[in-house]
């Protein structure tokens, strides 16, 4: 402590230690928050419409009838405002379709996602159509019964990242191709 640089070192170190304690206390105050349920305005997978094509979205790939694409229009509304506290940085919300196909025992396809930052709008509404084409590498999509879920991933400032999902909702794919 005899020279100025020593005093600067000591004071700065003490500041960093205090910041560390504040960060740990931040984690402790938000540790037990339950993210697995959303109090929703309307978690309702209301409407579903779609069309299936036996072709590829990209014209450069061969159209050989070996895989299918679907464009789904889902209608779901949810309100994620209650998920946020001072430890949550953002949420990653996605809509997935789960089903069994002859080629794979379990398929899970993301058709819509959104990042909700803390200062942003926490209401989501997916009725503008899916964001990603639903791909399948077989030909079994016609008339298929699938499950439809909302998933969210909580990204915290301090602490672990965790995945949560909503209950499943059954949908049925259209029975015929459309062109």
């Amino acid at each position, binding site marked *: 402590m*005899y020279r100025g640089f020593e005093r*600067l070192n000591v004071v700065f170190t003490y*500041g960093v230690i205090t910041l560390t304690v504040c960060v740990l206390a*931040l984690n402790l105050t938000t540790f037990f928050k339950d993210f697995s349920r959303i109090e929703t305005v309307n978690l309702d997978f209301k409407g579903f419409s779609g069309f299936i094509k036996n072709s590829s979205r990209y014209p450069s790939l061969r159209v050989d009838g070996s895989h299918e694409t679907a464009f789904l229009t889902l209608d779901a509304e949810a309100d994620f405002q209650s998920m946020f506290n*001072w430890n949550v940085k953002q949420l990653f919300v996605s809509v997935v379709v789960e089903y069994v196909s002859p080629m794979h025992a379990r398929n899970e396809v993301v058709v819509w996602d959104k990042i909700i930052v803390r200062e942003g709008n926490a209401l989501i509404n997916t009725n503008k159509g899916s964001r990603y084409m639903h791909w399948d590498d077989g030909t079994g999509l016609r008339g298929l019964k699938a499950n439809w879920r909302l998933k969210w991933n909580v990204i915290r400032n301090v602490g672990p990242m965790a995945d949560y999902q909503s209950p499943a909702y059954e949908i049925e794919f259209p029975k015929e191709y459309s062109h």
Partner: protein
Amino acid sequence: MGLNDWFNSLHMDYDGQARAEKLSRIIILLFGFVGFIWGYIIQQFSETVRILGAGFILAAILTIPPWPIYRRKPLSWQKVRPQRSGDSDGEGKTKKKKQ
């Protein structure tokens, strides 16, 4: 280099160093505590970090430069004693030669 000598001679005494370190710790702890409570109230951790940063700057300004209040109790060194002629070897040799 008068300014350099003056600058190098500014040292805190031990009592001043102890007081400065204690004061810096109290300031940082206080700002950290208040900052955490305020951040919890408004649910923004960035404000906590900013308040803690302001506390660090205040503690740095008050305790790092060697202010005169930290130099109030210098150690009382003994005065320089003039050497007596019989004690020193050099003086004795000189005297013998003179005889």
